[in-house]
C-alpha cells in the first residue's frame, strides 16, 4: 500500500496483518507499541517490591494481581508489535535489557515509600488509561485489540490506587504529610507523561496522519488535568504552585512549560538518567537470572545447524 493510500484510509482498526503496509508505517507503529510494551514491563518492576512491602494482606493480594496484569499487558503488546514484522519479541526484550529500549519517563524514577504507590497506581495509571482508551481506535488492529483487554483490566488498578490514596489522606497527620510530599515530587513527572506541549511541527505528525495516534499530547494532557485535578483536590491534596497551570476560558489548560525540567526529561528519554539506571539494570539482572528457563523453552532460538532437541532429550 502506498503511504498516501494509508493516510487516506487511516481510521480506527483499519489495518491488519492482511494488509501490505509500507515500511514507514510499520516502523512507526513498532516504535510506538514497543515503547508501550516496555513501559508495562518497567512499571511492573517498579511496583513489584511493594508486594513484599504492602501494609496488609489485602494490599499484598491486590499488588501481586496488579503486577501480574502489567506483565500480561507487556506480553500482549509485544505480540501486537511483533505482528508488524519489523522486530522480533526477542529483539525487543534484549533491547530493553541492554538499555536501548525506551519507556515511559515515570518508570525511570526510583520508588521508595508506600505513599508513592498511590502516585503510580492512581495518577500514572489514570493518565495511562486516558491515553489507552483513545488507542482502542488506533489504525493497527492488533494494537486496538490489545487495548480492549488492557482497558478492561485497568479500572481495577486506578480504583485500587484511589483506595490507597483515600486511606492515606484520611489517615494520621504524618501519613497525610508524607502523601502531600510525594505528590509534590511526582506531579511534574506525571504532567510530563504527556510529553512537551505540541508545537506547530509536531502537531501533524506522521503517527496521527496514519491513524496510529488518535489524539495529540496536548489534548490528552488537557483531558487528564480536567479529570484528575479535581480528584486530587477532593482527597485533600494541594496542587503544587509549579508548574503553573492556567485554565483557559474554554476549560482547557495551559501548562507553563518553563516550570518543568526538560533537561531531565530528555536525559531520561535517552536512558541516561543516573538515578534511573538502577531500574534498567535491575530488569537486566532479572532477565539474566531466568535465562536458564528461556534456554530450556525456546527451541526456536537454537542456532542454525545445531540439532533441535528431541522428545527423548
Amino acid at each position: 500500500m502506498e503511504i498516501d493510500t494509508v493516510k487516506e484510509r487511516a481510521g480506527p482498526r483499519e489495518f491488519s496483518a492482511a494488509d501490505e503496509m509500507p515500511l514507514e508505517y510499520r516502523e512507526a507503529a513498532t516504535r510506538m507499541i514497543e515503547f508501550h510494551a516496555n513501559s508495562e514491563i518497567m512499571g511492573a518492576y517498579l511496583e513489584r517490591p511493594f508486594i513484599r512491602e504492602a501494609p496488609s494482606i489485602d494490599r499484598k493480594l491486590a499488588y501481586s494481581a496488579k503486577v501480574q496484569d502489567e506483565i500480561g499487558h507487556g506480553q500482549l503488546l509485544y505480540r501486537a508489535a511483533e505482528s508488524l514484522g519489523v522486530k522480533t519479541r526477542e529483539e525487543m526484550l534484549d533491547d530493553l535489557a541492554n538499555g536501548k529500549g525506551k519507556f515511559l519517563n515515570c518508570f525511570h524514577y526510583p520508588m521508595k515509600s508506600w505513599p508513592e504507590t498511590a502516585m503510580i497506581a492512581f495518577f500514572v495509571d489514570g493518565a495511562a488509561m486516558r491515553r489507552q482508551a483513545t488507542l482502542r481506535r488506533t489504525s493497527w488492529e492488533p494494537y486496538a485489540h490489545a487495548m480492549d483487554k488492557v482497558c478492561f483490566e485497568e479500572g481495577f488498578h486506578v480504583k485500587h490506587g484511589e483506595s490507597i490514596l483515600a486511606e492515606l489522606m484520611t489517615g494520621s497527620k504524618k501519613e497525610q504529610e508524607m502523601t502531600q510530599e510525594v505528590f509534590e515530587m511526582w506531579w511534574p513527572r506525571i504532567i510530563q507523561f504527556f510529553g512537551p506541549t505540541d508545537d506547530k511541527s509536531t502537531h501533524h505528525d506522521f503517527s496521527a496522519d496514519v491513524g496510529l495516534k488518535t489524539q495529540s499530547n496536548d489534548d490528552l494532557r488537557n483531558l487528564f488535568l480536567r479529570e484528575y485535578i479535581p480528584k486530587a483536590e477532593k482527597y485533600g491534596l494541594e496542587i503544587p504552585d509549579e508548574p503553573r497551570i492556567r485554565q483557559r476560558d474554554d476549560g482547557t489548560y495551559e501548562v507553563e512549560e518553563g516550570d518543568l525540567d526538560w533537561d531531565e526529561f530528555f536525559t531520561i528519554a535517552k536512558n541516561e538518567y543516573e538515578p534511573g539506571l538502577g531500574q534498567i539494570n535491575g530488569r537486566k539482572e532479572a532477565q539474566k537470572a531466568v535465562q536458564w528457563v528461556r534456554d530450556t523453552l525456546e527451541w526456536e532460538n537454537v542456532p542454525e545447524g545445531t540439532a533441535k532437541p528431541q522428545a527423548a532429550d
Partner: protein
Amino acid sequence: MIWEVFRQEEQGDYHTHCGNVHAPDREMAKQFAAIQHARRKPTNSIWVVPKDEIGELDADENSFGGVTDKSYRWAPTYKSDLDHAAEVIDSEGQQAEAEKQRGDA
C-alpha cells in the same frame, strides 16, 4: 477434512468462531465457509483453520481462573463516591459483568 470457521463482521472486529465445514482442501474450505457462514450475515473476513491444528484444553483437565472469589482484583470492590473518568467507569462496568458471569457459572 474438517475446517473450523471464524467470521469477522466488520473491519477491526474480532474473528469469532461460527461453525465448521467439511472440505478437501483450504481453497474449498474458504469457498464453503463463505457460502455457509457469510452468505446472509454481513462479513468482512473469514478464517478457516484445520480442526487438527487446534489445541484444546478443557475444564476437566485444567483448573482455569475466574471461578474463585478474587474480589481484590475487581474494580467494583473499591468503593468511592468520586465521579470517575469515563474509561474507568467503562472498565468497572465490564468487570462487574464478568464477575456476574462467574456467579452464574
